[in-house]
């Protein structure tokens, strides 16, 4: 197999994974939210309602694609793609197992975060091009919140990078294999030194997911449907898919950085090697469940509270913590650079 063909296959696999993920996550969201609210969720179509989401996708695909009269046509058509593509690209550097990844980038962490930050551009495009006041407000809000939380998100992963001395995601995972004193898995989450970074990472990553308590750009009780108001058919489906793909990426990043990726403690490597992707996916799905749990519980934050929290609390806190963390690992020589 030529290397070109191999990479093409990998990209196709990533696309397939993303689409599959979207469908599964929509079903999961409905069921989990339903259970959280003491109802059932979809149960009619197929066994346990499993076919509900594929049918909905079919419905979206066959629906009439309405283009409102006054929209900025070019931007209106580009926007869904501009939202969808970065979400897809973010899959490239996620290590599902030691060998399963699209590409083993040395700057994998940076790449993923940077690519994900492109999403807000697409949202603004959609909001602006829709020629709808609600959409415009939604688009502006999304840009505001994404810019504000890009900085703490990037800074919050710095302790991990400082600790392991690499931006390569699979190296970060490998650094977490093994156990502390034979009891606890040597994941960063079990090390209290990483807890502040983890909290800041989760808060700022929730913004990326665009769901309650931070669904400012959609805010269905305020802005009707925000940036997606004027979109229908599969264009809307792309926004939807990208949103779910983002929650997968965020959860995958959290698992990679803090929960040891595909590693499991006490399991020998030869046993782990074949089941590594399964372990990884399970961890990611648990993370996504927590995201949905938060979504089903919390009310929405107000926009100005959100911005104040970012600029006045989160960014100073994360900068201070990086400084303190650097001192600590230098003083006690804790860093374990890999490679």
């Amino acid at each position, binding site marked *: 197999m030529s290397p070109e063909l191999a990479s093409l296959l990998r990209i196709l696999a990533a696309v397939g994974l993303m689409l599959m993920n979207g469908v599964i996550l929509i079903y999961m969201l409905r069921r989990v939210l*339903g*259970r*959280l*609210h*003491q*109802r*059932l969720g979809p*149960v009619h179509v197929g066994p346990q309602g499993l076919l509900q989401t594929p049918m909905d996708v079919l419905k979206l695909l066959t629906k009439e694609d309405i283009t409102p009269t006054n929209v900025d046509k070019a931007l209106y058509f580009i926007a869904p793609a501009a939202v969808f593509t970065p979400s897809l690209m973010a899959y490239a550097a996620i290590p599902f197992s030691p060998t399963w990844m699209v590409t083993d980038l040395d700057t994998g962490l940076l790449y993923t975060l940077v690519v994900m930050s492109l999403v807000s551009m697409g949202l603004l495009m959609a909001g602006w091009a829709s020629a709808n006041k609600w959409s415009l407000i939604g688009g502006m809000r999304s840009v505001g919140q994404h810019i504000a939380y890009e900085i703490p998100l990037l800074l919050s992963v710095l302790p991990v990078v400082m600790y392991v001395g690499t931006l390569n995601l699979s190296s970060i995972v490998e650094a977490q294999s093994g156990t502390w004193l034979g009891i606890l898995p040597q994941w960063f989450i079990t090390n209290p030194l990483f807890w502040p970074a983890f909290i800041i990472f989760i808060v700022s990553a929730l913004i990326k997911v665009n769901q309650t308590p931070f669904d400012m750009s959609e805010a269905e009780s305020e802005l009707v449907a925000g940036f997606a108001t004027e979109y229908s058919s599969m264009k809307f489906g792309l926004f939807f898919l990208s949103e779910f793909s983002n929650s997968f990426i965020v959860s995958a990043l959290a698992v990679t950085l803090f929960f040891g990726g595909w590693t499991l403690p006490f399991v020998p490597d030869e046993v782990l090697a074949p089941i590594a992707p399964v372990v990884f996916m399970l961890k990611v799905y648990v993370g996504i469940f927590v995201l949905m*749990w*938060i979504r*089903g*519980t*919390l009310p929405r934050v107000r926009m100005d509270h959100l911005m104040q929290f970012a600029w006045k609390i989160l960014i100073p806190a994360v900068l201070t913590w990086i400084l303190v963390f650097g001192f600590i690992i230098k003083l006690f020589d804790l860093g374990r650079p890999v490679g």
Partner: protein
Amino acid sequence: MWGKGILNGMRITMRNMLRGPITVRYPYERVTLPERARWAVEVVRDESGAHKCTACMTCVRACPDHILDLQFTTAEDKSKHIDYLRYEMGACMMCGLCVEACPFDALKMGQDYELAKLTRDELTVDLLVDVAAAAPARAKKASEVPAGGTDDSRGGGTDG
């Protein structure tokens, strides 16, 4: 501490999740309606299928929305013949005032709640069509004749 309420809220939602769903899966499961449940108006019929309506027009006058329509003709011997008792279900608010007003208990509020119809016309129901009015219950009581005395065959006796 800031955030305690949020965590408590998460605890409550999880507790509710563990309580399990309370959904009634309607087409497969049905709840039993209470005895007093008021749905569409029906004509009370005894075992033989006879009704008790005497065409006294009380229900028609009682209906706040004027959706009951009763037409009758009076024969020479003063007996009444009901042409139709029409009921516009689509405009009915199921207040039960006609049933309360009826002096002969000839009407009742039904318990069938699946009242959706495919066309508008189906919402206009003829409760009684072309039947002889029952002899007034008062007279019946006096002579102690068992109920269902629609022996008058003038109208053909076909009920709607």
